[in-house]
Each structure stands twice: as C-alpha cells, then as structure tokens.
C-alpha cells in the first residue's frame, strides 16, 4: 500500500473512531438526561430576590473592575510610548502587542454585558410570574440599567483611546471608531503584512465560530429535550452556522472566479 493510501486509511479510521465516540457519548448523555432528576429553577421568591440582587451587583462589579484595569493599562502604555523614541523598536513592538489586551478585555466586557443584562431581565420576568413584589428590586434594576449604559460607554471610550494611540504611533492608519465605515477605512489603510495578519486572524475566528456553532447546536438540542427550551435556540445557532459558512464560501468563490467567463 502506498504512503498516501496509508495516510488516507489512518485519517478514515480516526474519523470513524471519533464518530463512534460521539455515538457512545450521545447514548450515555441521553440515558442520563432521561433518567436523572434535572433540577428546575427555584420557585422560592426570597432565593430569587437574592439571585436578582447578586446578578445586579455582580454585573456592576465586573464592569468596574474591567474598566479600571483597561484604564490603568491604557495610561501605562501611553506613558511608555511618550517616553520612548522611534529608535526604540523593541519597546514600540511591545506597546503595540500589549495594546491588544485592553481591546480583548473591553470586547469580552461588551459581550458579557449583553448576556448579564439579558439574564437579569429574565430573572425579573420570572420572579414577576411567580408573584414576587418587583418593587423591592428597584435598586437592583437601577444598578443594572445604569451599569449597562456605563458598560457601553466605557468600552467605547477605551477602544476609541486605544485606536487613537495606535494612530499616533502609526500615522498612516485611518478611521474613526464611531464611524460605521471604521473597519473598511482601517483595513484600507493597512499595508500587506497587516492585512495578512488580519486575514489570518479572521480565519482563526471562522474556525472557532464553526466549532462553537457545532457545540452550541448539541447543547441547545439537549436543552430542548431536557429543559423544554423550545426551538428558537436551535434555530438561532444553526442560522449563525449557516451564515458563517456561506459568507466564507461565497467570498472564497469570488476570489476563484475565472477572468474570462
């Protein structure tokens, strides 16, 4: 048998083994979900009130910590940049590298804010359906709404400041963070190496999204069976999966279009 045939056989065997492992895993998961007593959300109003307060204060705390962290990092990087010259190549590379950290933290905070805000509203609705006196949650509601707006504002400011710092370090960069065409202007002002890095990062994101969609489909499917969550989560996950795959493949097809057709 040739080397390529041996390699193909090895790949097929591994694929079949992974499929079998998924079947076995699925069988035992289904068995467990069918026989286990899955605890449902508490119906105790006082516990719910505690959860609501905890969610509100936790939401606020996370935002304050993340905001302070990002501000400290930003001023540290700005100070470092102001104290170095264009000949300090290693330092400039370090500043640009570390500048990614406040961007990552603020991006995570933005998504977490959306999630925690939605979770809080769900708990309020659930408590209301159980007949709890929602008026007692006034402070928690105020904190949550204020935190949501604060979260949006500080993320925008931090990301704007980091972009402005990047533009000061690299004057050829274009784009304003509040402009809807920001991404297009930014990438158009990047040169070949930076575009290459952006495209490679985008491909990593594409692969991660596909994996997350697959995992999300499994989880939402199991939750539909075990917790009666309905069809919407499954539909949303598969819609995102479809959009991700199609947008990649259609873009790839455009690049492979023959010149004389």
């Amino acid at each position, binding site marked *: 048998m040739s080397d390529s045939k041996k390699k193909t056989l090895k790949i097929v065997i591994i694929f079949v083994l992974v499929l079998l492992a998924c079947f076995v895993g699925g069988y035992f998961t289904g068995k467990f979900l069918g026989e286990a007593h899955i605890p449902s959300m508490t119906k105790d109003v006082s516990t719910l009130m505690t959860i609501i307060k905890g969610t509100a204060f936790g939401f606020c705390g996370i935002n304050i910590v993340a905001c302070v962290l990002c501000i400290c990092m930003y001023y540290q990087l700005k100070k470092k940049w102001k104290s170095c010259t*264009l*000949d300090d*190549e290693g330092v*400039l*590379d370090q500043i*640009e590298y570390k500048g990614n950290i406040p961007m990552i933290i603020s991006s995570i905070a933005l998504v977490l804010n959306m999630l925690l805000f939605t979770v809080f509203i769900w708990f309020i609705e659930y408590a209301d359906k159980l007949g709890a006196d929602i008026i007692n949650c006034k402070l928690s509601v105020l904190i949550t709404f204020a935190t949501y707006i604060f979260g949006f504002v500080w993320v925008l400011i931090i990301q704007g400041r980091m972009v402005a710092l990047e533009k000061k*370090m*690299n004057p*050829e960069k274009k784009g304003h963070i509040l402009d809807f065409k920001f991404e297009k202007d930014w990438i158009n002002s*990047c*040169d*070949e*190496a*930076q575009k*290459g890095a952006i495209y490679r990062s985008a491909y990593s994101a594409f692969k991660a999204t596909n994996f997350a969609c697959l995992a999300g489909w499994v989880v939402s499917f199991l939750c539909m069976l075990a917790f009666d969550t309905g069809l919407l989560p499954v539909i949303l996950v598969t819609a995102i999966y479809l959009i991700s795959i199609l947008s990649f493949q259609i873009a790839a097809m455009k690049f492979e279009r023959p010149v004389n057709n």
Partner: protein
Amino acid sequence: MPLRNHLKEYRVKLGVNQQQMGALVGTSRQTISQIERGDYSPSVSLALKIAKVCEVSVEDIFQYEE
C-alpha cells in the same frame, strides 16, 4: 520561515529607523519590524522596493534557505 533576511543590517547602514524605512518603501513601521524579525515574508514588489532603497539587489537582503 525559509526566508533569511539582512534588512536590519542594511537599514542601520542607511542610518534610518524602522518608521523612516517604512516611509521610504511605502509601508508601515510594523511591517518593517515583522520582516526584520522574520515573522513576515514581503511580497515581490515590496522586496524590490526595499532593495532599491538600500541600493543593493534583492538577493543581498533576502536569501531563501531550504
């Protein structure tokens, strides 16, 4: 990466920093830094521009190693 380069040596001989080198060849400081670190192989056009600015041939700056 199989491409070995002496860009930093030629840039230092020219007496310019990375930002100035980038301006001379029409690219960014970051790209010059990535090329010097070996993290990026320039396109043919960029390699030719760099060689022209340094007044040497492309093969003097960039060598392909197996």
